[in-house]
């Protein structure tokens, strides 16, 4: 699975992009975020507040219950501020 991070989430996680092998018991976005939080203090800090986290799977906005599987492109970022 390809993970992308943007804006201050990228800065806190410490990378813009990584490839991860998803454990088989991780099946949705909420599970993925929990798994990431457990990977280290940078992840835990970056993902601490769900109210300022948005997730896109294969470039569409999704909620915490959305399924994820290996091969997906999952982007994690704060609320957008363009325009």
């Amino acid at each position, binding site marked *: 699975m390809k993970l992308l991070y943007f804006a201050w989430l990228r800065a806190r996680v410490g990378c813009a992009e990584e490839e991860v092998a998803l454990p088989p018991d991780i099946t949705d976005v909420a599970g993925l975020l929990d798994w990431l939080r457990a990977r280290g203090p940078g992840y835990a800090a970056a993902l601490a507040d769900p109210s300022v986290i948005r997730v896109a799977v294969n*470039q*569409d906005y999704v909620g915490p219950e959305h399924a994820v599987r290996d091969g997906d492109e999952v982007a994690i970022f*704060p609320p*957008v*501020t*363009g*325009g």
Partner: protein
Amino acid sequence: MIRVQREDFDVGAELDRLAAGNHRVGGIASFVGLVRDLGGGERVAALTLEHYPGMTEKKLAEIELEAHRRWPLDASLIIHRYGRLEPGDRIVLVATASPHREAALAACHFLIDWLKTDAPFWKSEETPEGERWVSARSEDDKAKRRWTGGEQ
């Protein structure tokens, strides 16, 4: 049409092109967003716009398609810049051309409201205290909700 680019754009030329040769068009509405510097303690020397290549184009195309579904538009254009921009620089252009004034105006308003909440761009500001990521505004969500109620 959608363009995501680092370079500036020429508003007059873009608007001319939108209706060129199409004499059905009665009105062109547009909105240009500029980098603000509010001065004082909020002084901003510059900002940097980051985006999510691929998803940006996808979301902008969806937003544009939705505008064409809702209003009789002959043409539309969204240009959004990324990279480092200084106060006064253009960030975004949204323009709509329609036989009908109301359609052009409403669709233009809709496009910029939706773009604000749906297009994956993030601004960070250079301030005297260092880099600061801009927070999303709840007013933007409210502005978008106007278009998701029963009004259209």
